[in-house]
């Protein structure tokens, strides 16, 4: 019995029993709801829709590749992927199902892991297929454009979807409320797109902070120049403002503005890549939210928790159960005396000590909990 924990849990994990069964359970949970399917349908529909929109409206510069058009504004498509991840967790908290899930799988990390795996595994093929379809449709509609090299770029985009879905799971675990998690994940995805141009401009005035990005070509989805604008589109930095740079050609579509600006300020094409900034921001946020997540996995107290409630005065019943509802006089039982005047035993609150044997009001004693053990200079009582 001494080593039960290690024995039971470890053997299960080693056999893969826990994670496999939990993953299967998560799949059933996903598959038996309509809302999750709708969200996944959005993940599939947006890339195709955006690619068609770009192709039909012909809003692609002559020298741009079809790939750039197909991957345009991918951030918009990422939002439902993040929402999907968030709902997989937060949806359980709102309905109370999480209590059953955690009672069925009392060790928590397999649950979070299974949800992240499921979210990632769902969006990867869906995003890949959707972008491939969008690319194929755009290529058919835009025969005059160079197609570009789709293989690493499409896989890379699909991987970003996995990343964002996992981010959504982290957000859902940390925030627990569906509305809050959805808002947070949307804000996290869109904020870099809105802020990046401002920050870029700010950084541009200060010198060349983009130099740090210079040798990073290998880590990019693709190092070829033709995916540059695709990446920029991925980052959502496409600006609808008319360009005012000196090199503006009349044929340039509004969507070309960032590229023009980038070219203008930094002549080398690989110099500055706005597409990397959101990814960097997301990474930071992922780390931050996973820290919050890990701190919340252990504590579980939805519905009926009484966090923050201060110890109040001794409870007194408002109604007399004998007379059936007539308010009755409450004696001065709080003054150490019984109703008949004899001394009362000090209340539980006055008598209680912490595990280190210290006595006194709560603020004077160290807070002890299952997670934060109080340090005792003397032996615990």
């Amino acid at each position, binding site marked *: 019995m001494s080593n039960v924990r290690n024995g039971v849990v470890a053997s299960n994990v080693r056999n893969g029993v826990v994670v496999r069964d939990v993953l299967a359970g998560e799949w059933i949970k996903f598959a038996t709801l309509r809302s999750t399917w709708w969200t996944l349908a959005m993940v599939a529909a947006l890339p195709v829709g955006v690619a068609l929109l770009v192709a039909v409206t012909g809003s692609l510069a002559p020298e741009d590749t079809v790939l750039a058009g197909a991957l345009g504004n991918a951030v918009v498509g990422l939002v439902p992927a993040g929402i999907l991840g968030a709902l997989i967790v937060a949806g359980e908290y709102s309905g109370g199902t999480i209590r*059953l899930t955690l009672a069925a799988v009392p060790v928590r990390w397999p649950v979070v892991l299974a949800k992240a795996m499921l979210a990632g595994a769902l969006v990867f093929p869906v995003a890949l297929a959707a972008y491939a379809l969008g690319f194929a449709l755009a290529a058919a509609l835009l025969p005059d454009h160079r197609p570009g090299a789709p293989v690493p770029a499409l896989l890379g985009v699909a991987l970003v979807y996995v990343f964002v879905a996992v981010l959504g799971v982290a957000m859902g675990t940390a925030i627990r409320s569906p509305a809050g998690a959805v808002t947070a994940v949307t804000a996290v995805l869109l904020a870099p797109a809105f802020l990046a141009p401002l920050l870029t401009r700010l950084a541009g005035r200060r010198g060349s902070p983009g130099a740090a990005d210079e040798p990073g070509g290998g880590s990019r989805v693709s190092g070829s120049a033709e995916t540059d604008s695709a990446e920029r589109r991925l980052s959502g930095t496409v600006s609808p403002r008319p360009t005012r740079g000196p090199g503006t050609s009349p044929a340039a579509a509004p969507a070309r503005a960032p590229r023009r600006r980038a070219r203008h300020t930094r002549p080398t094409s690989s110099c500055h890549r706005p597409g990397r900034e959101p990814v960097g921001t997301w990474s930071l946020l992922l780390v931050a939210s996973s820290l919050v997540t890990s701190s919340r996995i252990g504590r579980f107290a939805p519905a009926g928790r009484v966090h923050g409630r201060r110890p109040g005065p001794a409870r007194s019943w408002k109604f007399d159960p004998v007379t059936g509802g007539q308010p009755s006089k409450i004696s001065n039982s709080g003054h150490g005396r019984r109703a008949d005047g004899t001394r009362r035993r000090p209340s539980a609150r006055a008598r*209680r000590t912490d595990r280190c044997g210290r006595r006194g009001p709560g603020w004077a004693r160290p807070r002890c909990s299952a997670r934060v053990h109080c340090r005792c200079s003397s032996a615990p009582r």
Partner: protein
Amino acid sequence: MSDRTVASVIELTNLTKVYGGRRVVDDLTLTVHPGRITGFLGPNGAGKSTTMRMILGLAAPTAGRATVLGRPYRDLPEPMRHVGALLDARASHPGRSARDHLRFLARTNGIDRRRVDEVLELTGLTSVADRRTGGYSLGMGQRLGIATALLGDPEVLVLDEPVNGLDTDGIRWLRRLLRDLADDGRTILLSSHLMGEMEQTADHLVVIGGGRLLADMDMRTFLASHSRGRTVVRSPHLDRLEPALRSLGGRVDPDPARPDTVLVEGVSPQAIGETAARLGVALHELSPRTESLEDVYTRLTAATVEYHSATVGHGAKVPPDAKVPPGAKVPYDTKESS
């Protein structure tokens, strides 16, 4: 599980939970034994649900430990096969059908899919099993919760308010079901606010108040040791009868609900009848009343929430010892060996 020889299936040792400085469960030491239905009573906020959640590993104890079948819940492999729980009726996603709800739980614990149909049949949900649970009535949701608890055919059942929302048939069904399960040697911990229901269902009582143990004893012993035998006396001439009864050492309280009626304590019904005959007073009713669990429980818990009333009824003075049951000052630990 084959190991039915474990004497104490649920064991709480100095279990304590502090939420924001407030002791919701305070040093609770308790064992729940197999083969009987243990009723778990306490006023709102007494810590019942928190205790149940700690048993199920949903809340971490601040101090002490809770074990099920000799080990912490979290260390049970496939826990649903050992412990079935009903914590609240609305624990299913409204967009999911009852069958799917049970199916995913069964899958996580390696329970056969046929068992899902079995428990649906058992709880009478087969006809609505494929409807989304958002449209369920409270009673149907409660039945689904019971189905969830029974899914793994567990030997321990922890049920929080299982009769809420059930109709009369449902309550009778549940009572019979729990009785059968207990006779089968399983362990059942059941909380309820319905005292009448609890009195009929439970064999053993655990009462907590303010997070502390107030009583842990056999139901009959509990009632016997705490009830006051009283007699209902109705008569149009109470003004003549009352002084005579008081002179016999009885305590006479008017019944707040009915006129011409008093509750007499400390005088036997025979003595009351003879006294009435001697005085030539007509009696319209003379019936001994044994206190129900509700009366005893109310008195017991009222005393623990620091409530002392100086007056009762229509101003009758109460002897100080009458209000507070003898055991309420110190937590009981009179375990019956049943």
